[in-house]
């Protein structure tokens, strides 16, 4: 992405190109589903139920692994035993990557706010883009979360996202 780092896309003439890149990215989100608890069933309903059908929004479920995913949906309770695995999977995803935290448990602990074994919010370990409230949220709520994320991707400036410390290999 050398062009991006040089700031080529910031020139006014190349604005449409940024728009096109973002437009293509937002309608081909490969979603790695991280079904943990009750919300996984509602996520499954959103993905395979003919009534909701998440694929019409351009979200492609069931990639073979986190290496092929753009988006991860944390649906359900993250326990302290599970948290290292969540972090490890998130780190395997290629940049740019997005996180949807689905349900009260992933947002803040939910009904287990005083439990000894539950991580109170997945945002303690990985950065979250969209929070979906509910216990569990309806599949429609997940669809709205996806639409919000797509709006965010469309308005994103890739140069801003990529500016930072250079990646050093070796």
């Amino acid at each position: 992405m050398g062009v991006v780092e040089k700031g080529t896309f910031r020139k006014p003439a190349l604005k449409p190109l940024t728009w096109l890149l973002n437009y293509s990215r937002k309608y081909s989100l490969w979603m790695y589903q991280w079904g943990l608890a009750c919300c996984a069933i509602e996520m499954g309903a959103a993905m395979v139920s003919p009534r909701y059908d998440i694929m019409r929004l351009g979200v492609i479920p069931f990639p073979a692994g986190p290496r092929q995913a753009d988006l991860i949906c944390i649906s359900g309770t993250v326990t302290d035993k599970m948290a290292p695995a969540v972090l490890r999977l998130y780190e395997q995803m290629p940049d740019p990557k997005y996180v949807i935290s689905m349900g009260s448990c992933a947002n803040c602990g939910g009904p287990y706010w005083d439990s000894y074994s539950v991580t109170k919010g997945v945002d303690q370990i990985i950065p979250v883009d969209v929070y979906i409230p509910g216990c569990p949220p309806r599949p429609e709520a997940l669809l709205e979360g996806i639409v919000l994320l797509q709006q965010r991707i469309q308005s994103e400036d890739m140069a801003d996202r990529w500016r930072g410390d250079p990646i050093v290999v070796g």
Partner: protein
Amino acid sequence: MALTEQQQRAYVASQAADARLNVELQTEDMVLNIGPQHPATHGTLRVVARLDGEQVVWADVVCGYMHRGYEKLTEVRTYPQITTLVNRIDWLSSFANEVPFILAAEKLMEIEAPPRAQYIRTILFELARIANITLFIGTMGADLGAITPVFYAFRDRERILNQIEAVTGGRFHPNFDRIGGLKDDLPRGWIDETKNAMVRVREFCDELEELLMGNEIFQARTRGIGVIPSDIGLSYGLSGANIRASGIDWDLRRDQDLPLAWKDLDWKVWTHPDGDSFARFWVRLQETREASKMVDQMLDGLPAGSIQAKVPRIIKVPAGEAWVHTENPLGEMGYYVVSQGGLGPFRCKIRSASFNNVSVLPWLLRGAYVPDIITILASLYFILGDIDR
């Protein structure tokens, strides 16, 4: 551990094949780790299997990735708050989790819900069973490589969830049961809609019976795979459809006297003598159809009257101990409630079905082949919240 006859035969056959080829096939042991995030484990179960070639020689289940500490949390909640919590143990049949807990509290308080409330409870219980097992039928197909049943299952499951939502306001977690009765009565027009939905459930069962159970590949992959003899099943504490598929005629809905509507109904407990994966699928499919007929009977014979017994405004349960268990969709689920007269229980032991159902896996997976691991996991049918609580 004793090997089944089939496991022994498979081992002898593999040795004989090596002898015929005049080679000694010795392979390095390989450890195969399935999970904690694997689609076939339906959540966060981890199975560690040591393989000799294609055969499992040792397997173990690592659970606890979904442990949320229910038993400790019940000690700091009041009785009406606990129904919210126990909903989420077996998240596919939430209402069925509330009922034994509420019955245990009612047993300690020595009150009984009015007949109409008992009937509505049983109706919602059976609807939860249908919603649960419908998903099993779909995912069992998906795990064996047939993707169509999942779409059918989710399509027809929505009809049941609609009916549950119309009464309780929640698709998943109704939180509808109260000590001494129910929160609300049935809405207008619900009975006819539910009858229509039950007709659809029976159509779904017929459809899947032809589509999946009549399929030659499905039969080849499930018949004779994962055989649980009845004595092994009993010694590991299996319950529900898993033990009924091994030929044990045991159903807590019929075998005990609870203040619920099952005793008034005309129904049958389905068993299968084989004990293999196919039998477990078959029994669950028959149970779904039976449950839809039970709901029809209860809707016809729904008594009139109040839905709430007289209870004090602030619920205090007198000191004592009570154990109530019911036949949940996954098997026997029970609550042992110890009360010291406070607003909440002093201790609450939760017996959930899936934990015992997966405990047989180390025995069952020994001698199985790698593709059959998935069949066995799918046919045992566990829910992670129910294992780890």
